[in-house]
């Protein structure tokens, strides 16, 4: 008898997976060529959520564009706000006060938690673990309420401004954040008990969608997907920005670069983020929460209503062509967003509107590498691999 059962028929079948499929989260499409149940060829299609963010950047002034960055990776808008204003600030050549840097770190790490939580919920849901979805959303709602109290919105936060943040943390922030980071590791343990040593979960994810470190670099993978292959690369460590060099944290790495490792890396990153939030809270400096140059930041409301200079500054910032005007030149700035390297390449012609804004989205590269991880596997692995990559259509298609 043959050692391996003859499963293939020699006939090719084309399966159109998406764009409306529960596991593609709405907008991704993969055309699979199948022989029986094994994947011969996978062709991902992008562009179903193309919104023209980059074109819009050429028509909005620097502060208006923050609103657009919210809607890029909508799992963690605060990270995008952060990355974008950092790029503009570096182009302007200014540095924000220490307190602002810490506030941004706090918000970026909390949104990393929110991002990974949603990823966890949906990736588990795709593989049939519904309870994890409910657990992770329970935790996420707590984060939502912190975001809402800080920024005024649950999801589309628009919290940062060029030169700072638009308001200070609210009074009970420290209590809320500390409360969250003390209870969160316990809550995450529940998920660990549900998934980490779960036979089904391990069978579905171990060895599935593996990629070698060389290939990962060649394909441009970043973030947890790159770290899962064993490359300990984190921009927060490699090129520390905004006081990240003052934080102590570990960069978790995997060994096999498969879906299971990506899961473990993200799980550990959440714990590390909690640690960073704790440190930032311990050392949160006093002082101004944004630069005090009124040519960049709007003056305080009381100032705008009470003093003529304040009013003039307020006016100039919101008026077309008088707001933030970086010098002519171009700049690329990368930050470690929850998904990987989020870069903004801004070309300025000296006016109040960017000449060109290019966004380097991490998901674009992850989705591109999908065929490499899928081909030769089984059709059911598609869902597991796609779930483990956390491809966000908003930043994939921009």
């Amino acid at each position, binding site marked *: 008898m043959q050692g391996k059962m003859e499963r293939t028929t020699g006939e090719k079948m084309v399966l159109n997976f998406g*764009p*409306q*499929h*529960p596991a593609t*989260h*709405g*907008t991704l499409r993969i055309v699979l060529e199948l022989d029986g149940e094994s994947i011969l060829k996978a062709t991902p299609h992008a*562009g*179903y*959520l*193309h*919104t*023209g963010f980059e*074109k*819009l950047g050429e028509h909005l002034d620097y502060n208006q564009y923050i*609103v*657009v960055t*919210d*809607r890029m990776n*909508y*799992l963690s808008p605060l990270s995008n706000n952060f990355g974008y204003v950092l790029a503009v600030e570096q182009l302007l050549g200014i540095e924000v006060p220490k307190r602002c840097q810490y506030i941004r770190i706090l918000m970026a790490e909390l949104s990393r938690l929110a991002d990974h939580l*949603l990823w966890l*919920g*949906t990736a588990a849901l795709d593989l049939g673990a519904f309870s994890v*979805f*409910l*657990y992770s*959303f*329970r935790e*996420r*709602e707590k984060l*939502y309420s912190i975001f809402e109290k800080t920024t005024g919105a*649950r*999801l*589309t936060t628009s919290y940062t401004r060029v030169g700072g943040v638009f308001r200070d943390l609210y009074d009970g922030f420290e209590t809320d954040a500390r409360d969250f980071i003390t209870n969160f590791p316990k809550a995450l343990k529940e998920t660990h008990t549900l998934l980490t040593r779960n036979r089904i979960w391990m069978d579905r994810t171990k060895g599935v969608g593996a990629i070698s470190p060389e290939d990962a670099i060649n394909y441009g993978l970043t973030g947890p997907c790159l770290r899962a292959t064993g490359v300990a690369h984190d921009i927060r460590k490699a090129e520390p920005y905004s006081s990240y060099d003052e934080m102590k944290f570990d960069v978790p790495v995997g060994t096999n670069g498969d879906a299971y490792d990506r899961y473990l890396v993200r799980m550990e990153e959440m714990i590390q983020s909690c640690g960073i939030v704790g440190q930032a809270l311990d050392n949160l400096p006093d002082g101004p929460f944004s630069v005090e140059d009124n040519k960049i930041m709007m003056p305080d409301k009381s100032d705008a209503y009470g003093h003529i200079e304040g009013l003039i500054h307020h006016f100039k910032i919101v008026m077309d062509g008088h707001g933030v005007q970086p010098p002519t030149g171009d700049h690329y700035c990368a930050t470690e967003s929850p998904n990987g390297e989020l870069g903004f390449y801004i070309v300025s012609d000296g006016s109040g509107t960017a000449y060109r804004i290019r966004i380097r989205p991490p998901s674009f590269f992850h989705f591109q590498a999908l065929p490499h991880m899928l081909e030769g596997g089984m059709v059911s692995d598609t869902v597991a691999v796609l779930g483990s990559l956390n491809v966000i*259509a*908003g930043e994939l*298609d921009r």
Partner: protein
Amino acid sequence: MGLANTHIQSGASTEQTDGNIITTTIDKVVNWGRKNSLWPMPFGTACCAIEMMATLASKFDLSRFGSEAIRFSPRQSDLLIVSGRISIKMMPVLKRIYDQMPDPKWVISMGACASCGGVFDTYTLIQGVDQFLPVDVYIPGCPPRPEDLIDAVMQVQRQIQKGELPKGSEVAYNE
């Protein structure tokens, strides 16, 4: 037993006789049943889809309102929730999904982008899906809060209870 035309409201009988008999019209029973078993087809593309997920998850729990049976197959659903930006590349897909849904079908346009393009007045974005689909309920917001989505679903339920036809209905399904 009188032939009084009683109404069934909010899922509870209003008149009970000794033999537990309810009298009503067939339409009312059908509408009552239909209203409490909406099967939404979530067409979630962007940020609004995240809030839609939040609506379905533990804190807000849409299933309290009788429409938790999310179906990703248009053939099995009667409520299309368009949540998110619809690009010119996506519009034919959306149209096809809508066409595949069996009558009667309702459409909720969730959020500013689906309703009018939102902040994205760009070359690739449909400025309101109502140019191509009959929308029954619009939800403002960018993105709307989960309560808003729950409210919109209840709005649809009220319309159904009243026996109003969906905007896109070609035949009067109650006749």
